[in-house]
């Protein structure tokens, strides 16, 4: 398709698919010509009919004015610089040439035998314009990423990593097939390149995988998933556990006689059933209508669109059943999927098979026994492919006749596959982790949009965002699900329901306060509003599982507490506006508590009559109500009610006891001895203490909510990501540490080198590196060396001296300047000057010290 690079000129109807779909031809120029003729014809037709109404004339004129231009498609075939590629990409080995000839021969025979079949995809050119056989383009390469070891994750990776290109035109085989290496580099490819790459990965992972060339629906070819439900949204089918039917035991008591009229009940049921049926029918119709609405428009190229995908046969890697993988989406399909309409050929790195089965019914009912040569015409005989099972006896018979001869022949005859010309695939860790081109990818599904991001790409750790809409045009947003990874605050999912306005955030375990889930209204994130918090109760000391809040209520649920409490409910009153000084700092601006309810499980170690089931502190009424658990054989429970003494709030005051007024009780068992007044009194004291504790707990809970919310908002703004200890690229600390180590190593090396320097070498070089040094030469060497050293020392001393003098001079100058301008000098300058002076003095001092030492050293040598 060289012509694809040309600009297609002239008039082309805007929608090519709908008008001319049936007789489009290879060449776009021809196509335009055809259309031109068509138009002429039609205009003649119109001219022929004289009796046109003036209206129609006017319409015709109007129409004539409209000139439709084809959109200028500037499609330039991507050119590759051959210099970038190794030899195997640019040339063919003799064996490859042989294979090419062989396959050409195969094709000729094939065309001859099956004139009405489409050409085969055998020898496309590669990026360097060299013809290559498709089987050799597959290069099974294992990469060090475990995701590529399993088919599902590998397919997902390929689907994510590449951007897809459609075939142009969609009913023609491409002429060029890029090597997988180039595809990985470009991160782009058509279905052939996708499949070749994915097949390389799958073969290397040990799957029995093949590239399949055939035909598919428009949606599949264009990777159009807008009619598919997003895989993230399909809920796993929950096992509906049937309510265990009550076993009818031998001695199950008979239910009380039912005094309702059976007939009436039946009529009622019939009515309900009729209603239900109607409802069901209506629903069914609705669904059908919906389906009708969502059906793709008929595709004129149906059955002609060329597509390539992957076939994985059962047998290897514990694959129980053969299936297809769609490379564009990475999703598996059953072998009788309606997405695929026919198969021309399949191949992998060992052989090439042409489908001889009838595909008029799509791919349904095709056999994938590649050894069956009536169904699959192979290209290379006798390769290690499953041959059709020949009955043993026959084989024996044959073997008896001419075994050796046969074998010899076969060895001679067989043309084995040349090694692949493709370089081993390479993928850097960074690229692998980026997954998508530029690390982002978005997909459209039916009423949903999915955006994917590479890990660590987004500063807040977002890895995917799923937006669900109510309509197909994606305008009516229903909810957004955001998935995060590596967040330090352990947030992993955030669901914002735009319908209800609720946001729910899900966290991994390991947070302070053990928060698991947090639901709140987006409009009111502040404390004391409606919210639900779910905790990892196993990790909490107080066993808190759930806390539900509304502005005036707070309910907490507990699990597995030692005190058997499982429920706590608080009713708050309206905040009172207080005038004057406030009571204390603690109760400064908290909501007043009206009522606290605590509920307890049965504590088996106590008697039911003594075991409190519900404890209500009616704070606004100064009452405490208790109800006890019911005994096993009873249906009513004992209760007790205290009215707090009037002076209960005074600290340290003794509480007066008037039993009749302060205490009321109802005991189920009338016979039981009533409690002693002391016990009742002491119980009241205990309850008052309990009330204090309970109130404190409530305040603590409120504080906790506030703390969590503060923490959350802080986390949201900071949103730091956690970096694994082993992630050497991202872990800054580890990186600097490693760099430091490397630097130290380098220094060590340098030092070693320095140590090895022979200071006599330059002098020896002066006398021409003699093998042996004579006596006088040696003396001379010594002299030279010492002189040199002396010279160097002197130079150094001079240097120090010079610097010393320069510093001193400068200082003096500065001092002089200061003396002059001291009077009208701003304070800052003065400070600067003083600083400078002290610096300079320090430098001078250092230089002095050095000079002195130098003098000493010199004296030492001489």
């Amino acid at each position: 398709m060289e012509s694809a690079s040309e600009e297609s000129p002239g008039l082309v109807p805007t929608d090519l698919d709908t008008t001319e779909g049936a007789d489009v031809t290879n060449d776009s120029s021809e196509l335009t010509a055809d259309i031109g003729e068509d138009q002429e014809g039609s205009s003649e037709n119109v001219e022929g009919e004289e009796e046109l109404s003036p209206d129609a004339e006017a319409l015709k004129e109007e129409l004539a004015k409209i000139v439709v231009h084809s959109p200028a498609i500037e499609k330039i075939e991507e050119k590759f610089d051959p210099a970038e590629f190794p030899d195997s990409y640019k040339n063919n080995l003799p064996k490859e040439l042989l294979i090419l000839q062989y396959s050409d021969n195969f094709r000729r025979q094939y065309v001859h035998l099956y004139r009405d079949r489409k050409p085969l995809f055998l020898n496309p050119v590669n990026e360097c314009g060299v013809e290559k056989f498709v089987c050799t383009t597959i290069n099974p390469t294992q990469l060090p990423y475990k995701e590529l070891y399993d088919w599902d994750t590998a397919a997902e990776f390929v689907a994510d990593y590449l951007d897809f290109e459609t075939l142009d035109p969609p009913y023609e085989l491409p002429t060029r097939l890029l090597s997988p290496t180039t595809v990985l580099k470009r991160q782009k490819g058509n279905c052939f390149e996708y499949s070749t790459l994915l097949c390389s990965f799958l073969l290397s992972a040990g799957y029995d995988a093949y590239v399949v060339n055939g035909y598919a629906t428009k949606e599949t070819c264009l990777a159009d998933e807008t009619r598919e439900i997003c895989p993230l949204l399909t809920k796993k089918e929950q096992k509906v556990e049937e309510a265990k039917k009550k076993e009818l035991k031998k001695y199950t008591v008979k239910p009380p006689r039912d005094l309702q009229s059976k007939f009436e009940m039946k009529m009622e049921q019939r009515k309900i059933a009729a209603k239900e049926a109607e409802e069901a029918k209506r629903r069914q119709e609705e669904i059908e209508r919906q389906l009708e609405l969502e059906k793709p428009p008929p595709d004129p190229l149906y059955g002609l669109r060329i597509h390539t995908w992957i076939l994985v046969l059962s047998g290897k890697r514990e694959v129980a059943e053969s299936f297809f993988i769609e490379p564009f989406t990475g999703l598996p399909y059953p072998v009788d999927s309606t997405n695929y309409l026919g198969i021309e050929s399949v191949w992998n790195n060992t052989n090439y098979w042409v489908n001889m089965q009838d595909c008029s019914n799509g791919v349904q009912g095709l056999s994938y026994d590649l050894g069956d040569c009536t169904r699959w015409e192979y290209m290379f005989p006798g390769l290690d492919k499953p041959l059709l099972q020949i009955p043993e006896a026959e084989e024996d018979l044959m073997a008896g006749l001419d075994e050796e001869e046969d074998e010899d022949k076969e060895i001679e005859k067989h043309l084995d596959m040349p090694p692949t010309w493709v370089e081993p695939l390479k993928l850097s860790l960074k690229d692998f982790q980026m997954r998508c081109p530029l690390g982002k990818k978005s997909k459209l599904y039916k009423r949903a949009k999915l955006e994917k991001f590479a890990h660590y790409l987004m500063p807040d750790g977002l890895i995917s965002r799923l937006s669900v809409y109510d309509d197909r045009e994606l305008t009516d947003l229903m909810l957004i699900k955001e998935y995060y990874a590596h967040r330090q605050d352990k947030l992993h999912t955030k669901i914002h329901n735009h319908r209800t306005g609720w946001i729910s955030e899900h966290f991994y375990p390991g947070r302070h306060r053990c928060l698991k889930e947090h639901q709140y209204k987006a409009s009111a994130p502040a404390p004391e509003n409606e919210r639900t918090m779910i905790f990892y109760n196993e990790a909490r000391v107080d066993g808190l599982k759930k806390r539900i809040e509304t502005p005036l209520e707070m309910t907490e649920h507990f699990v597995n507490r030692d005190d058997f409490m499982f429920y706590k409910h608080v009713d708050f009153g309206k905040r009172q506006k207080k005038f004057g000084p406030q009571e204390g700092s603690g109760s400064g601006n908290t909501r007043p508590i009206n009522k606290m309810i605590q509920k307890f499980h049965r504590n088996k170690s106590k008697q039911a009559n003594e075991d409190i089931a519900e404890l209500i502190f009616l704070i606004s009424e100064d009452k405490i109500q208790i109800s006890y658990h019911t005994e096993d054989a009873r249906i009513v429970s004992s209760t007790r009610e205290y009215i707090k003494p009037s002076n209960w709030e005074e600290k340290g005051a003794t509480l007066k006891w008037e039993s009749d007024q302060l205490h009321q009780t109802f005991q189920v068992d009338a016979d039981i001895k009533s409690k002693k007044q002391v016990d009742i009194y002491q119980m009241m004291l205990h309850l008052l203490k309990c009330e204090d504790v309970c109130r404190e707990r409530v305040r603590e809970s409120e504080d906790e909510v506030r703390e969590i919310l503060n923490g959350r908002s802080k986390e949201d703004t900071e949103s730091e990501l956690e970096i694994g200890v082993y992630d050497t690229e991202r872990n800054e600390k580890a990186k600097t540490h490693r760099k430091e180590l490397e630097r130290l190593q380098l220094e060590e090396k340098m030092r070693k080198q320095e140590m090895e320097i022979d200071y006599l070498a330059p002098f020896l070089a002066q006398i021409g590196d003699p093998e042996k040094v004579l006596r006088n030469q040696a003396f001379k060497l010594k002299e030279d060396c010492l002189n040199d050293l002396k010279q160097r020392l002197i130079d150094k001393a001079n240097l120090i001296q010079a610097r010393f003098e320069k510093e001193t001079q400068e200082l003096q100058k500065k001092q002089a300047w200061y003396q002059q301008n001291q009077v009208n000098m701003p304070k800052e300058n003065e400070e600067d000057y003083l600083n400078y002076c002290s610096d300079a003095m320090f430098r001078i001092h250092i230089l002095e010290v050095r000079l002195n030492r130098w003098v000493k050293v010199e004296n030492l040598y001489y």
Partner: protein
Amino acid sequence: MSRLYDTVEPSVIDEDMLQRAVEEQGPKEEAGKLAKAEGIDFNDVTNLRLDFKNILKIDNLWEFTNLVKLQLDNNIIERIEGMELLVNLVWLDLSFNNIEVIEGLGTLTKLQDLTVYNNRISRIENMDNLKDLQVLSIGNNQLTELENLVYLRKFKKLKTLNATGNPFCENVETYKQYVVAYLSHLEFLDYRLIDEQSKVAAKEKYAMPIDEIIHNEEAEERKQQENEIKQKELQIHTKAYVEYLDGSSLFDSMYAEDSDGQRLNEMPGVDELLAGFKEKFLGVCQKIFEYGLSENEKRQAEVNQFWECVEEAKTENKEAGMKIIGAFFEERKRVLAELGTITDNQVIDDKIEAYQSQINELWDKLMSLELQLVDQLEDVIKDFERNMQEMVSTFLENVKGHLTQCRDLENMHHERMMEISIVTLEKVIKNELDDEITEELRMLFVDKDTIIGAVSSSHDLHLLKIDNKEDDIETRIKNWLSAMMEKIRNEEEIKRNRVRVVEINHQIDHFKEEIDNLDFLQGP
């Protein structure tokens, strides 16, 4: 342990002293006032301190049955006594007394902490029942034998031991190592944590004797377990009314009192016959045994199922009742709240009337629910009784069938015995007997009547035994059935019903009273 103030007169625990102590140690302030006004019952007291009272004899403590902690330290007590009824005692302090022997602690099975520090005890003993003992302080006593400490091995929960200051502590190292080695579950010795190192070292030193002790203990334990298992099995067998039928006990019992039979068995040729008879007889017994066990299981299953269903029905009923009452409580709350706000007397009266009728309605509902349950249970119990009776009678029939087989066997055996004895008699008469027979046996072969009488009486005895067994089984199983049915009738039908009716009426009365009182208060 002579005391400096021996001159002080010894005292006895009496009512006064106890009263004073209880009041002193009881509640304070307002509660104390209340308590005094009401009086404190001794059996409500859980803690009692009687120290430095110069008590010589423990006495008068029997009323303190709920006592958990008792301090009797720093007295001059000489004997541990009078504490048999303090079964709830967990904490007992008898330190600084003049006790010489550990005794009288047999009933204090809940005791965890025992302190007999600074006494004159010379031997650790008589503490077998203190299974829960965790802390033992027995320092400053007259213990001389280290070996005596091995006694403490049986207290598996003992964690803390204080034994310093005894004669055997002279060599501190040996004492410590010995204790650590022999009492391996000990964690604290003389109030110090025993570290891992010293444990290992001590264990090494006394490895041999300890191993032996452990071995013995294990053997003992195994034996005990086996015994227990056997006991349990026997219990099951007894419950199935086929105890000992898996062995030869019935067969043996047939011959146990049958001296003639035993003698007759010595006749030549009886050996084989007897062996065959025994084998067959035991086979039938085994059948009865197995059948009995399987029937017992069936009966158990039936009983369990019955109870399960009864419980189910009761819970269902209970839930229904609770639901009704719960709904009423809501209603009551609403009505009471409403009454609080209304001032118009006429309206109040109307409301109260309505409420009262609601109470009556509640009564109706609860009672009808109860009646329904009574009906249901009655039906079920009848069914159950019928089925059980059927089961029992089938069981008895089958057992009888088997026992009839036994009788047949016995009859056959008897005939053969007869033959043999007659043959033998002839031989004896003709003096043709090959073997010598015992004198006793020879005595039977006096004449034909005697021998036939002997054989027959033996046979009758055997049949009697079998009949006895049959009767035994029959009476026992019938007794069991009637007792069970009686109990079910009493407990489930009558007693339960009464309690529930009382309960309902009580609650209804309470509601009525409440509203009446309210009425009264609200009245003009």
